[in-house]
């Protein structure tokens, strides 16, 4: 077990390093110096070349690529991801300030999304009427296909401006969190619902369900005590990707709902070509991804008894 965990940990570290390297290649080797992009072109001409070089030096953009890479990598290992070109703030501080907001939003959205997805899957399996069942089973594809950028705007228009139930901008408090969390949850719930729905249907068709019925158990309890666990366990393995989706979804949600957070930070940084910040964010999501996956990988055999006895090959 320990060896298994260590193996997974090793892989996780490799992935993080890979993400670091890939983002470095993409970001630092761009044709223009990030400093260049700090200035509107119409002002650039009036910048003193010496001052410009000083700035390049301050950020280390004047060094050869490999040296920049090593410097950054070593610094990153010490937990230093450089400073934002735009604001001069250390990247870690910037991320640290933005993160709590996004975490709150993401956790709420995740809970909502999971509950929603689970309800759809449950109800669609429970209902006896075929057309009602098909109707509900048609919801997840719709969620998946909806342009999420439009969704936020529509939600805000309807629930905030038209009905006035919730404030459009999320200040403090729970009420402000509702709409953004919903807007983020809906697109995220689509794939989860699809997965759960499929799992519910396959599991419900499994012979062990017949066994449960033959004991005289009613449908609702069969779903709860037999199908539910079997159908939702595999969704855990999507954890890493779902967390990634939440963070990515925050880009649009936070902009639309005027919230601070990683999403806004990302969009601004990408627009401003704030290379250190973008790389810091890439590292953040990569670390989140591998952490979640690591936890899932290591704990999955504990929650799914079948996996305790299976040879290596099944877990790819």
């Amino acid at each position, binding site marked *: 077990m*320990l060896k298994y965990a260590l193996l997974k940990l090793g892989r996780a570290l490799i992935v993080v390093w890979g993400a670091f390297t890939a983002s470095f290649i993409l970001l630092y080797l761009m044709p223009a110096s990030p400093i260049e992009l700090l200035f509107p072109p119409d002002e650039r001409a009036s910048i003193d070349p010496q001052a410009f070089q000083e700035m390049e030096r301050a950020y280390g953009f004047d060094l050869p690529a490999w040296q920049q890479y090593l410097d950054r990598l070593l610094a990153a290992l010490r937990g230093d991801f450089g400073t934002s070109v735009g604001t001069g703030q250390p990247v870690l501080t910037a991320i640290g300030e933005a993160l709590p907001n996004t975490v709150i939003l993401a956790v709420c959205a995740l809970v909502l999304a999971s509950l929603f997805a689970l309800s759809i899957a449950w109800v669609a399996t429970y209902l006896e009427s075929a057309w009602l069942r098909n109707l509900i089973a048609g919801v997840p594809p719709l969620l998946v296909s909806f342009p999420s950028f439009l969704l936020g705007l529509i939600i805000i228009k309807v629930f905030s401006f038209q009905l006035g139930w919730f404030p459009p901008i999320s200040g403090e408090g729970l009420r402000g969190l509702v709409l953004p969390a919903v807007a983020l949850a809906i697109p995220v719930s689509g794939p989860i619902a699809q997965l759960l729905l499929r799992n519910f249907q396959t599991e419900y068709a*499994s012979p062990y369900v017949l066994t449960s019925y*033959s004991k005289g*158990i009613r449908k609702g309890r069969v779903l709860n*005590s037999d199908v539910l666990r079997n159908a939702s366990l595999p969704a855990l393995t999507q954890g890493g990707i779902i967390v990634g989706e939440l963070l990515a979804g925050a880009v649009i949600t936070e902009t639309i709902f005027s919230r601070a957070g990683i999403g806004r930070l990302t969009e601004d940084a990408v627009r401003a070509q704030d290379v250190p910040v973008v790389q810091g964010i890439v590292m953040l999501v990569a670390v989140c991804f591998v952490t979640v996956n690591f936890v899932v990988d290591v704990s999955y055999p504990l929650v799914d008894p079948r996996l305790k006895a299976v040879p290596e090959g099944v877990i790819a």
Partner: protein
Amino acid sequence: MSLLSFTDVNIWYNRRGEQPSQAVAGVSLAVEPGELVTIVGESGSGKSTLIRSAIGLLPGNSRISGEIRLAGAGVAGWSHNRFARYRGTYVGFIPQDPGVSLNPVKPIGRQIEDALRTRLRRRRLLPFGNGAHTQRIRSEAFRFLELAGLPAPEAIYSKYPHELSGGMKQRVLIAIALSGEPKLLIADEPTSALDVTVQKQILDHLDLLREELGIGILLVTHDLGVALDRADRIVVMRDGSVVEEGTGGEILHGARDGYTRRLLDAAPGLHTGRLTPRPIGLGSAKLTRADGHERSTAEYAIEVTNVSKTFTTRRGGVVHSVKAADEVSFKVKSGTTHALVGESGAGKSTIARIVAGLRAADSGEVRLLGQAGRWSRKRLSRSLQFVYQNPYSSLDPRFSVADLVTEPIRVHRKDIGRRDRHEIALELLDGVRLPRRYARRKAGELSGGQAQRVAIARALSLNPEIVILDEAVSALDVSVQAEILQLLADLQAAYSLTYLFITHDLGVVKLFADTVSVLRAGSVVESADTASVLGNPQQEYTKLLIDSVPGSHLTA
């Protein structure tokens, strides 16, 4: 009043975009208390469909007409929740496949407790909020597990299904069915996935329960031997209708229906003599041995000496090792059939694959056609071919039958053109008695028996001397099984083939093999000619195996 009665029941399945297909047509049938009724019939004859309709467990796309009564109450149109009142306590159900019929993520104990709780609650023996009753329920559960033939229930109580063997799982399912204390037990092929030895134990057990508790049993099987052995009444189904009904004796001696007769003829357990080959009309043109490779004249086609193989699997640092072959030795004369028998996991496949060069042995020697040493893949495949248990998975689903059977020729004989290959394919189909029009079909469009013929035709295409058949007929219906065996016998005679034949079915061995090795846990228990091993077994284990063949005592 009958426990269960069907009156003129018809069942259809709807498939999207297709005509509804009728799975059960006009069946009338009743089960009385203390009676064991078996339904036999080939695969797809509607057995499962019929009995599931009695407890409302048909899939949503089915439609029923006619009358089904449980304790006199018509069940037509009942919802799951209405049915729930009858299930478990009135009618118990043992599903077809024990491997997948238990919830994989729930401990065994909880699965049986669920059933107990339903009954206790329904009989008002257990008020809601059952915290105090844990102990009571647990002891009840133990009682039923023991009753189902699991002598040490504590040992498995907190285990998960995957930690049990197939036989144990089946017994757990029986315990679950019994724990509702039903008046009627419906069992859908409760033993088909099991070894003959385990099968016998379980059937004995059901018999006992019937006698002791006086419950009615409706048992489905496709094994006529089982039915003849046990049933008060046998119902033979075909294409959804009942074609014959009567006691075991009536069926055995006075079957009127042609299909029943064929079933009787085909059941290996009922056979006495060995198959006699029929002349075969193959060997015309193209393919015939024109490739110049000499057929061996060695006395023994296969000589296996002290072959051992140990598998180690590692998980989470713990190493498990299994001795799949332990100093195995046997010889097979050219032109004869040698059978390897033994229960599941005995190492039969492992040895077959070592002989076929698909897997390396840890130690020991395999001589083929008198030659030892390493054979090249290509050279080996000209002399030896392998036929797999599952015909579908051994045939590429995207290839046409013609391409499938001539695939080895395509690889080995670059000199033979496309046209000629097609000719050869047609001849090979003739050889395995498959109509030529099947040449264009894909494997998925064939029945199991047809697909296995294609696999055999492919094995023959290079004109090999040795054919290894790893459970090549086990997955097939008995009637189809008999046809294939006959075909193999015919081919053997025509081409003086040597067969290494793997099976767990002693009936088949009796029918087909010249010599036999009995394997247990990787080692050879007994090895001699078939007649002497089966007629006069020296080992306890062999005796047990022989004794477990259903229907054998009827003819012995």
